């Protein structure tokens, strides 16, 4: 007999070694997330997937599922906190959705829609961040980086390259690349690398592809991220 956890009152089966996120996704239950992606070592840094496990807040993407867990996921309280955490990501960097070529395809933006984020709530930091357009095919706009480390993990775990890293402490964290010059053009990154396409925001973009799909016809222009995410990730977790 398979073991079960309970999410928002619903019994969800899990197998030993699965995280709460993995069990939930396989059972068609969406838990908001940005730094998590199936098949990548869980990171647990964005904290959007915070759920209440037997009363305690835990990151669903890193916390192992275990028999007897009573988990709250879609409570008003948790979603309100997730909205605030998303707003934190927005004010920390410089996110200008309407002018970003990722608009409509951006998970950060889609999560914000999903959480009914209508404003940025907090005062902006207006951080001074640069752009690295040196690479012929790939662009980094540091203004939109949320330090999810998906590119770091993709480069290391999928591409076998180690192109990216997050450096610095606290609010001064920033994305760096592995080149003596510090520029993307001097790394061995290629546009076909997973690290170049995994970014959940508009921080890493493939050049000359920005408007091949018109605004209004993009992924999240028509569908909510919960549906898209479950459809794409369920198989990978299953």
């Amino acid at each position, binding site marked *: 007999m398979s073991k079960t956890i309970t999410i928002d009152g619903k019994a969800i089966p899990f197998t030993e070694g699965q995280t709460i996120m993995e069990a939930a996704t396989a059972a068609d239950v969406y838990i908001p997330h940005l730094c998590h992606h199936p098949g990548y070592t869980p990171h647990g*840094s964005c*904290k959007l997937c915070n759920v209440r496990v037997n009363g305690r807040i835990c990151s669903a993407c*890193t916390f192992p599922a275990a028999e007897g867990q009573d988990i709250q996921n879609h409570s008003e309280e948790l979603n309100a906190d997730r909205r605030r*955490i998303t707003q*934190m990501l927005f004010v920390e960097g410089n996110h200008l959705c309407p002018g970003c070529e990722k608009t409509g395809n951006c998970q950060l933006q889609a999560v914000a829609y999903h959480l009914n984020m209508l404003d940025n709530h907090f005062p902006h930091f207006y951080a001074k961040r640069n752009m690295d357009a040196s690479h012929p095919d790939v662009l980094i706009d540091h203004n939109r980086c949320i330090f999810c480390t998906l590119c770091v993990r993709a480069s290391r775990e999928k591409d076998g390259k*180690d192109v990216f890293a997050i450096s610095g*402490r606290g*609010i001064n964290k920033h994305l*760096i690349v*592995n080149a003596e010059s510090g520029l993307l053009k001097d790394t061995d990154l290629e546009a076909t690398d997973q690290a170049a396409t995994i970014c959940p925001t508009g921080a890493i973009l493939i050049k000359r592809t920005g408007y091949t799909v018109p605004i209004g016809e993009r992924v999240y222009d028509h569908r909510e991220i919960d549906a898209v995410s479950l459809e794409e990730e369920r198989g990978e977790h299953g």
Partner: protein
Amino acid sequence: MRQFIQRLAAKHDFRPTHLLEMLRAVQARYHHIPADAAELLAEVLRIPRTRIIDATEFYSFFSTDPKGRYELLISDSITDHMLGKQELMAYLAGKLGVAVGEVRSDGVVSLDNTSCTGMCDQGPAGLVNGYALTRLDRSRIDQIAELINGEISLEEWPAEFFQVEDNIRRPGLLLDSPIAPGEALKAALARGFKETLIEIDKSGLRGRGGAGFKTAMKWRFCAEEPQTERYVVCNADEGEPGTFKDRVLLNSFADQVFEGMTLCAAIIGAKQGFLYLRGEYLHLYDKLQAILAERRAAGLLGAGILGGAVDFDIEIRLGAGAYICGEESALIESLEGKSGIPRNRPPYPVTSGYLGRPTVVNNVETFFAASAIAVHGGDWFAASGTEKSQGSKILSISGDCARPGIYEYPFGTTVRTILDDCGASDVLGVQVGGPSGTFISDQEFDRKLAFEDLATGGSFIVFNGNRDILAIAHNFTHFFAHESCGFCTPCRVGTSLLRNQLDKITGGHGSAGDVVALEEICRLIKTNSHCGLGQTAANPVLTTLERYPELYQSRLKKISFEPGFDLDGALETARRMANRNDAAAHLQQTAAEHE
């Protein structure tokens, strides 16, 4: 430089785990981490250069920009502020002709702030090239400026500048009866290691770092792990402002601390131990190395301890200025030569710690107590204290009291007794357990020191009636924003938002609603953060807001909306460009208040 790096890396057997030690050496020699040095290190250690850049940018004591040949850092702890630090800092900057945060144009000296240096009982304090400077005053600063301007080497500076006192004011159960080297190990061997663990269990000893996990249970869990390569780590990264008891234990009782680590190793079956010493305690490094050498010579460390029963040795590793490394999993990351980012749990360090192996991490005081328990037995220890908090607790007391220093009390002692003993009068409140702990007001002095009431890592900062509560909360909140590792969103962004929001209120720009916004940020950080730093970073604001809401309210403007900046100040550039300074070129931001 190539030769220097090559030799340095060879000295550390080209082990990337020793990256911090190597970066410390590079910083000491070049007064920064030159880009070339980072490249060379990456090459010889065969690690991505990004790891070196990350470590350089993460730890406060490393810098990519050149610092002065004399790197002066002055402690920014609240206790230093109370002892006149700010005024002294201005005096020092004037004397040396260098601005805070800058390097003098001749490259001789740089001056900056640093988080607490652990000298709160003898401040204002600072560091010069990593070595502790105590009891700074104007005359001492005059002399220091002269020595620096004369480019006199540190070895020739007067020894009293670097003198660090123990200031043990009230010894108790443990400090009164230190054990002789080898005594605990012999007792444990005679009794049996399993039986000794039972004694430690019986003693009720709980981790003295603050969390209070039962020591015997932690050791047992680690011993029961199937993986047999195990490690013992002594957490001497005492970074909590106001805390300095570990400094004293390591200065005067290091033998007993090392003995506790060896005892743990014997019980859990570890061959290697680490003392992770905070970078600010560099002055203890040589002395501790000498004690380790003596213990090896006496057969108390190394191969075949106690006639062959145990093989165990201890290595000292220095931190490089990061409060977060006091968190045990961040400390382990740092030991592995990486930046100190707390790991996801589970797995816990007892299962997967240093290099993924089972690891016991305990505080200095825990190992110190464990060795005494091995000698005197569990009942001896459990006879002190309360039902749920056995034994005694060593406290670091600083702030507004006649006798700052080290005090040891059985658990259950009231705050009032402690305040009387240290000579504190007209007390407004006490910060218990440092900024991450609790601020208690003068209405709560009958509360007891114990896990069931006032749990504490061991620091008391006393504030008298002349102190400004908001200035205290301000200092602590800035501290946390500076020390957040930045891994998770609520702490990375939240501590900065909290700092800015508190600055808005203390700066006189707060209005109705701003205290509510402040509380909301506090709750968000506390509830959603990844580790203890974030979960406690809002405590200074929360505990003072709860006790003194009227103080926060009194700083607010009476208008309904106040921008978070100075409107009139923002027009300064425009006025300069327009060459105007008449009344009409100014904005009356606060007019509504006077209606």
